[in-house]
Each structure stands twice: as structure tokens, then as C-alpha cells.
């Protein structure tokens, strides 16, 4: 398959190389970080997660693509240019199962602008096109996440 692709010559071959490199670079953009702290204290940190806003849901996918946390319902309001959401519904899609995750508290800050925005009553800034999140589940698990939005699909 690879050899067949390279049967193209000249400009076609160069374009193909460029396309492959380009797609690899896009994959490398997934640079979000998720930290999960269990109620018992154990901590996992997941780098290079992919953050997508798809049809008004927030999707966070592990780098290995095997787990996606979806926040599908939230009470959102704008604080200046930042959207602050109180998430109320989440599911974990993993291992072929779709499991509800009970959220009891937390906030998701979404900055869809092209400039960094400062949170209200805080010195913390949310970078452009980025998400900052901290939630607590019904089982006492803390999930925090930050990173650049990789894709938005309305």
C-alpha cells in the first residue's frame, strides 16, 4: 500500500508527502492534559488528550483513543468573553461501553476567542481557543483538564 502510494512522481509525490506530514502534525496538536484523582488518592495524568466540542458537547479523548469523556449537559453562561459552565451530565465511552458519570460540582471554562482571557475574580488566564475544567464526581473523583480545543463542530 505504501509502495503503491509512492508510485506517484514529481509534484504528486511531493504533495502526498506534505499531506502525510501535515496530518501527523494535526494529530500531534492534541495537547490537552487530564488529571484524575481517585477518592482514595491515586492519581493518573493523561497527556496529549484530544479536546473537541462537537454539537454542543465537550469530548475529551485519551491519546490512545480508547476512552472518551463526554460532557453533554451543562448550565452555561458567559462571564465576559469566557463561557462558564456548570456541567450536569457526563458519560464515559470506553471499552465498548457507555457509562454515565455523575457530576456533583465543578466548572468548565471555555475560551473560544483568539486571545487569552482572564477569569473573573482571578489572575488565572485561559489561553485562546482553550478549555480549563475541574469537576468532582459523585464518587469523589476529581477530574481536571486543560488544553487547546482541537476541533469545533456545530
Amino acid at each position, binding site marked *: 500500500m505504501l509502495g503503491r502510494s*509512492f508510485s506517484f512522481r514529481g509534484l504528486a509525490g511531493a504533495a502526498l508527502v506534505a499531506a502525510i506530514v501535515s496530518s501527523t502534525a494535526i494529530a500531534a496538536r492534541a495537547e490537552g492534559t487530564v488529571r484524575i484523582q*481517585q477518592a482514595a488518592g*491515586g492519581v493518573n*495524568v*493523561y497527556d496529549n488528550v484530544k479536546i473537541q466540542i462537537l454539537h454542543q458537547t465537550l469530548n475529551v479523548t485519551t491519546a490512545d483513543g*480508547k476512552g472518551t469523556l463526554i460532557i453533554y449537559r451543562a448550565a452555561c453562561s458567559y462571564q465576559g468573553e469566557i463561557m462558564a459552565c456548570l456541567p450536569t451530565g457526563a458519560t464515559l465511552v470506553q*471499552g465498548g461501553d457507555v*457509562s454515565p458519570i455523575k457530576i456533583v460540582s465543578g466548572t468548565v471554562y471555555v475560551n473560544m476567542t483568539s486571545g487569552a482571557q482572564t477569569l473573573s475574580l482571578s489572575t488565572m488566564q485561559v489561553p485562546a481557543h482553550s478549555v480549563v475544567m475541574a469537576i468532582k464526581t459523585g464518587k469523589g473523583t476529581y477530574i481536571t483538564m486543560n488544553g487547546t480545543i482541537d476541533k469545533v463542530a456545530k
Partner: protein
Amino acid sequence: MRNIAILLTLAILVAPASAMARPGGGGGGRDFGGGGRGMARPAPAARPSGGGFNLSNDVRRPQPQRPPQNVQRPNNGGNFNRPNNGNNNVNRPNNGNNNGNRPNNGNNNNGNRPNNGNNNNGNRPNNGNNNVNRPNNGNNNNGNRNNINNGNRNNVNISGNTVNRTVVNNPVYTGGAWGWNHGVAWAPAPYYWGGGFWGAMAISATSAAIYGSIVANGHSYTSYQVQPSSPGATFLTNYSLTQVQCGPSGLVVVYGPQNSVICANPNNYVAAGTYQLNTDTLTLSSI
């Protein structure tokens, strides 16, 4: 020969990029712990063997099926009716007495509480009236809104649709719904006082300052300080209202989502009185 050259070029270009994309070797993350410097770090949690997020404590596991023990238990039987349950009888040697004292467990629900449906009606016969005094329910549940409003109107002798009801339009946002929120619909979130409209204050655990309370229909509704940058703060700003402690007379009393209430001093926009807040448009309706 040219193909080989292109292949080599591709290999050189792709290799470092792939390495950047998967620093964890495809595992999708890293654990704290081990060789930590300075502050003590929490121990790493076990990862799911199949990859993905470790939220095993938050995901319901399928319950193993139990053998159908004690399924066939006739009532009033005592030991004779379940003589061979093995360990069950050993651990509960007085089945006879137990059964004698509770002979009709299966029927007790019906026998001792035969009128659950009626009890609810009997004990809470005036839902309509109650909601008159707690008009906030109207925003919370569309299904209830119709019934509540109908009940209210009848009870307070408001005939027709909007007679004697003053609507104070939002001075800032005069358009349609959600204009105050960049067009994004807002819905109350559970676990927060007022659904989070007045700020992210967890019910029963908020450390926000208490701003008095309102007693209506025998119920006391505690008011809390509206948090800055919340939708409720936007509402107050729109009407140039300043929140004050609930309790004294002559205030603007505003019922918000989920039985929440706040109070403010009257001003040029809003006269003293009791109002229901429409979260769609941030308009006030007197009640």
C-alpha cells in the same frame, strides 16, 4: 531509485513527528509517583487494562447474578416452608418466630400502607396554592408550569391570561430569549442553589453569605449572596438593583430558579413587591 529516495525522505520526516505525538508510547498518559522530588506526590492509581481513562470507581459494574435462593418462600411457613436453605437456617435459627412476627412481608406494603396514592393527595391537597407562594417552580419545570399557573390564577382570582400582572421588561436586553447570554440557552443545574443561576453555590454546602430568608406558605427560603459574574449578577446589573438582606418589608423580592429567592432595594426600574424571574429573558413578572 526515485521511489526509494522519496521513501527515505518520508521516513525521516515522519519518524520524529510520530514520536512527538505519542510520548507515552501510546498509553495516553503518565502517572505521578516514583522518584518524586520536593513535595510528596500521590500514589498512581491503577489504570484500566484496556487503555482509556481510569474512572472505574465512577462506572457501574455489572452485578454478578445470584443464585435464585429463597425465591420460593410461601408466607407464614416458618421452618416448615423453608427447611432446607442450608446456611440460611443455620444463621437464622428462629425462622419460625420471625415469620410469626412478620407473617406477610409481601403484603405488608399493601396492607399497612394501602392508600399511598390517596395519602399524597390528602396530605398535600393544595399543591396549586402552595405553588402560588412559591412561584419559582414555574421556571423549573415546564410540565408543572401550566398546572401551577392555572392553579394560581384561579386561586388568586386572576381571570384571563395576564390581568393584574405587571411585567417589567429587561432594560438592557429587549430581544428574544437568551439575549443576555450571547444567545446560549441556560438551564438550571442540580446540586446548586438556584440551579447555579446566582453562582456556583452547592446546596447545603455553600459558604456564601446568607442574605436573610423569606417565609412563604409555612416554608422558609434562605437567600444567599449573589456571586459576581453569575447570571444572577447580570440580572441585578441589568435592573441596577443592589442585593440586600431579605426580611424587611418594602423590598423587591425576586424568586429565581429552583425555589431560590433574593431581595433588593426598589429603584426606578422595579417597584417594591414580589416578582417571578423569567430566566429566558431576564424579565420580571409581579406575583
